[in-house]
């Protein structure tokens, strides 16, 4: 039976818009990255301003490169490839544009709010609740547009790239919603619904899977589309791609706890994270090899074609980081790598190599086709490739070096059994590595500028093709297999909604298995009687700590290692964090751990903290920490203190009934006593300054547990 052909269009305008946004935000995000990279070596670059200080710029960098650069890259690829794979126009032009402008508005809002200090204090999920809601809405718009396009398709089977996008959509929706449970206190302030251990588990379940389902699966979709396109040959093994897909989404979701090894997270959850992280090697490498083998017999083309060069290095970097990831999840490796620059190196091999290079390859492939002209300069693109690759190498090697060196220095003891190095010595020692890393990053960005110029010239030489047309028969109502036997998987490949449902079930299993037991133990997290809720002043100080992004450099988690116990004090217990909404364990120690900062072992005077925040080098010469002079001048805003206490009560923190009414009075009393103690050290300051609250908070850290003999466990 022959069917009449239907004619439909492909909208290139929306692809172009996402393409320009990808480039623009890529440059912005990388510039922010470059600034913070050099700030770590030259603290003067923090400019003594809140808006330009590391703790606020770092979330701008991470959010910009993940959600703005890679995010727009995903949408660029999906809006180009999906209609072509489905042989159908995108469902709604209006939804496409709402999606585009909505996402850009969210990015701008993110940059402005993060720099202004509005943050939830949870990595990669820093945006405050109104922005979280906006993200949810726009994500739903994207989902409707995508699924309706799939439903009105003229191609029966969904190509493997489309599965990856379906799984991406549903999983990101689940992760974002679960991790964003927060109780609003005001328009731009909220507290995480979860506390301590639970908050940490949910956060890293989210954080790890943001890497999995935002940086990996959608880009695997792009890989499965653009690599065959650029090589002009089908993917090496479609069978492998099926295994790759199902195994990857099944395993990935379980791996989150590997971010919390040796922490106060229950042991069984840590072990689960390790086992599944290790298993991740298999599907990841199946995917990498599948991509590389697609180029079998085409290696001569790779020599000629910069696009294929980018893809080869991207896949190699994907292979390297997915080998390294499972290794880092082994507890003995993690004991060395965690909290050091090793993690930073690992992340950037993935981000610069995998995400960056897939994006650049796709851009070089798309621009000439959408503007009907050859690329302005292949040679320039090849130069971009070489400079970019060199940039990645120069970035990664110093960071690996820094990571190893610092971890080994942390763990070094003298023959007498005392720690060999002060924390500061371990940082000063790797400063040259920070400078080299900055150079690597600069090279990578230079490559990007070459690309911008190349694309600019190509665009100028060509003429934009706003619409392309395709022709295909409509799908018949009844499916008639054209050949051979059909199998059950072919059933699901024809049914996008069922694919969505099965993907959700597959990813939800892992989530449920990890999260539910952790919530059930709420009553069983051994509370430590000595651990008391924060006083109002300490709570305000904690909010300033979160606002300034102190967690980006300081952990609050002493692991049960000899060196950490010797350096900071006894290791952290789950029961210490029951009032921490959100948890502040951190993931990197550019500065020392602060979990025991107020413990008699480490306690400094109030005036020490005052001077240190004003100018860290006054107290620790050679320190790379930024100065926080504005904390000394700014008045503490107590207008929300009562609502904050009430919010904490709602979340289960046991303040006495009606305490919110006297909270500010208590706050003032405690502030006065700190101001008095400062006055004794000849520091004259009004008690209503922000610095007073910060000092109160820092002095609280680890202090409660001191009086608790029961919780004191000596390491054997």
């Amino acid at each position, binding site marked *: 039976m022959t069917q009449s052909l239907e004619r439909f269009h492909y909208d290139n305008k929306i692809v172009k818009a996402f393409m320009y946004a990808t480039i623009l935000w890529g440059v912005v995000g990388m510039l922010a990255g470059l600034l913070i990279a050099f700030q770590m070596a030259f603290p003067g670059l923090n400019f003594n301003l809140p808006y330009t200080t590391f703790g606020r710029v770092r979330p701008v960098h991470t959010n910009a490169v993940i959600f703005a650069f890679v995010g727009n890259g995903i949408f660029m690829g999906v809006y180009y490839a999906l209609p072509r794979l489905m042989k159908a126009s995108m469902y709604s032009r209006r939804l496409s544009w709402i999606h585009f402008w909505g996402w850009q508005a969210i990015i701008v809002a993110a940059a402005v709010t993060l720099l202004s200090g509005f943050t939830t204090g949870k990595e990669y999920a820093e945006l405050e609740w109104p922005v979280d809601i906006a993200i949810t809405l726009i994500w739903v718009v994207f989902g409707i547009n995508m699924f309706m396009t799939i439903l009105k398709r003229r191609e029966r089977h969904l190509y493997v790239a489309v599965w990856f996008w379906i799984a991406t959509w549903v999983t990101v929706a689940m992760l974002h919603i679960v991790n964003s449970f927060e109780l609003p206190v005001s328009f731009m302030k909220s507290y995480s619904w979860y506390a301590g251990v639970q908050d940490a588990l949910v956060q890293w379940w989210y954080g790890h899977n943001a890497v999995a389902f935002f940086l990996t699966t959608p880009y695997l979709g792009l890989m499965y589309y653009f690599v065959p396109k650029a090589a002009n040959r089908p993917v090496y093994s479609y069978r492998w791609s099926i295994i790759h897909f199902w195994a990857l989404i099944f395993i990935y979701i379980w791996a989150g706890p590997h971010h919390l090894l040796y922490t106060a997270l229950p042991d069984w959850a840590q072990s689960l994270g390790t086992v599944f992280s290790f298993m991740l090697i298999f599907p990841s490498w199946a995917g990498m090899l599948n991509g590389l083998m697609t180029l079998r017999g085409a290696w001569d083309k790779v020599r000629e074609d910069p696009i294929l060069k980018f893809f080869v290095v991207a896949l190699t970097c994907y292979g390297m980081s997915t080998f390294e990831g499972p290794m880092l999840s082994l507890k003995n490796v993690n004991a060395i790598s965690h909290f050091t620059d090793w993690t930073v190196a690992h992340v950037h091999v993935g981000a610069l190599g995998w995400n960056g290079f897939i994006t650049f390859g796709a851009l070089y492939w798309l621009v000439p086709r959408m503007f009907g002209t050859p690329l302005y300069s292949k040679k320039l693109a090849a130069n971009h490739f070489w400079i970019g690759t060199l940039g990645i190498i120069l970035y990664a090697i110093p960071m690996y070096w820094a990571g190893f060196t610092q971890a080994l220095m942390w763990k070094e003891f003298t023959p007498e059994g005392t720690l060999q190095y002060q924390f500061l010595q371990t940082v000063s020692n790797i400063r040259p590595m920070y400078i080299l890393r900055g150079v690597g990053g600069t090279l990578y960005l230079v490559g990007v500028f070459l690309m911008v110029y190349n694309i600019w010239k190509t665009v100028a030489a060509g003429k934009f093709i706003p619409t392309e047309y395709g022709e295909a028969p409509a799908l018949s109502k009844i499916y008639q297999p054209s050949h051979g036997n059909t199998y059950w998987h072919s059933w699901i490949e024809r049914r996008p909604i069922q694919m969505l449902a099965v993907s959700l079930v597959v990813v939800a299993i892992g989530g449920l298995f990890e999260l539910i037991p952790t919530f059930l133990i709420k009553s069983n997290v051994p509370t430590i009687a000595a651990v008391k809720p924060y006083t109002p002043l300490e709570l305000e100080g904690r909010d300033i700590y979160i606002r300034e992004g102190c967690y980006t450099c300081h952990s609050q988690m002493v692991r049960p290692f000899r060196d950490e116990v010797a350096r900071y004090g006894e290791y952290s217990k789950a029961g210490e964090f029951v009032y921490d909404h959100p948890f502040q364990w951190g993931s990197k120690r550019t500065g020392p751990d602060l979990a025991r900062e107020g413990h008699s072992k480490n306690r400094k005077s109030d005036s020490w903290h005052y001077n240190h925040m004003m100018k860290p080098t006054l107290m620790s010469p050679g320190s790379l920490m930024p100065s926080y002079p504005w904390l000394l001048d700014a008045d503490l805003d107590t207008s929300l203190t009562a609502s904050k206490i009430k919010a904490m009560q709602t979340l289960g923190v046991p303040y006495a009934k009606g305490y919110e009414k006297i909270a500010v009075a208590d706050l003032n009393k405690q502030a006065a006593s700190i101001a008095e103690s400062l006055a004794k050290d000849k520091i004259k300051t009004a008690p209503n300054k922000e610095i007073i609250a910060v000092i109160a908070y820092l002095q609280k850290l680890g202090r409660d547990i001191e009086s608790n003999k029961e*919780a004191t466990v000596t390491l054997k």
Partner: protein
Amino acid sequence: MMKFINYLESITGISIYPLVSLVLFTVFFAVVALYVFTADKRAMERKSHMPLDDH
């Protein structure tokens, strides 16, 4: 005494969790592998060509 072992003991039957997860994964993986290796060759080839004939 507060020891890490407390958390392990605090949920009844927690040891079943890793076991169940492993069984779930193995079964799931086996089924996918079974399908993949018994699938029709021509169907696989046709599907893998989708990105190449999308105009």
